[in-house]
């Protein structure tokens, strides 16, 4: 099994590829079906954000091992316009574009760890991890 896979994100087909790659890494690592689906759903949201708001970017998927815990870490990066108020973007119904802002806050609820950093004019990076055997599946 490869410990690290980089998926270029530029179209809706790449969104599917990224979440399927994440799911297969999770399954091979021994995460439950539920855990793998939570991970795949979160990947789908962050990947779509890249396509929809920026156009292209990348998602790095890697197996991580920390203090005896194993999991899949997702690093989604783009060089888009960035987000001025990260906290606001993570609140329900507060994202830009007048859309229902469910994507990022929803993804955060599905993962065990979730961090977003963004710089206006530089881009945005979302880093999130799903641990194997984590509480609440």
């Amino acid at each position, binding site marked *: 099994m490869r410990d690290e896979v980089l998926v270029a994100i530029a179209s*809706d*087909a790449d*969104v*599917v590829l990224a*979440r*399927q790659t994440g*799911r297969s890494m999770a399954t091979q690592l021994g995460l439950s*079906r*539920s855990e*793998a*689906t*939570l991970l*795949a*759903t979160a990947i*789908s*949201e962050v990947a*779509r954000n890249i396509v929809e708001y920026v156009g292209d970017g990348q998602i790095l998927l890697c197996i991580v091992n920390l203090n005896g815990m194993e999991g899949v870490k997702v690093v989604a990066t783009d060089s888009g316009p960035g987000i001025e108020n990260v906290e606001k973007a993570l609140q*329900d119904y507060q994202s830009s574009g007048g859309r*229902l802002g*469910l*994507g990022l*806050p*929803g*993804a955060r*609820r*599905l993962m065990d760890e979730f961090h977003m950093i963004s710089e206006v004019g530089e881009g945005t990076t979302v880093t999130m991890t799903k641990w194997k055997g984590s509480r*609440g*599946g």
Partner: protein
Amino acid sequence: MPVPILKQGHYLVASIQDALSDGEVLELQENLLKQIGEFRARGIIVDVAAMDVIDSFASRSLRTVALTTRLRGAEMVIVGIQPDVAFAMVRFGLYMDDINTALDLEEGLEFLDRWIAERADADEG
């Protein structure tokens, strides 16, 4: 590959075969709404058992078809949401409270039969 839509009596049955991209979800949405009129369908069943993920986009699109179908005088039911997918939707906070769901195709058909019968009763009464 477009999602096959089969005509079964007064119903349309869309059987999703694989993971869908956003584009394919929109194509399904458009085809279903067009075919309600073409076939004068009374009901739609969308079988999502093969969907790996139902995220915010997929759930919003399915909800749009369901509510639009209702405005066209028919009714839609979603069948086959897998247990892990249902769990992720609840965790996510995706609600489909005003949408009909059933366990599988058989229960979906029963639901629509009942819905039509109740409507006929109401018309008579």
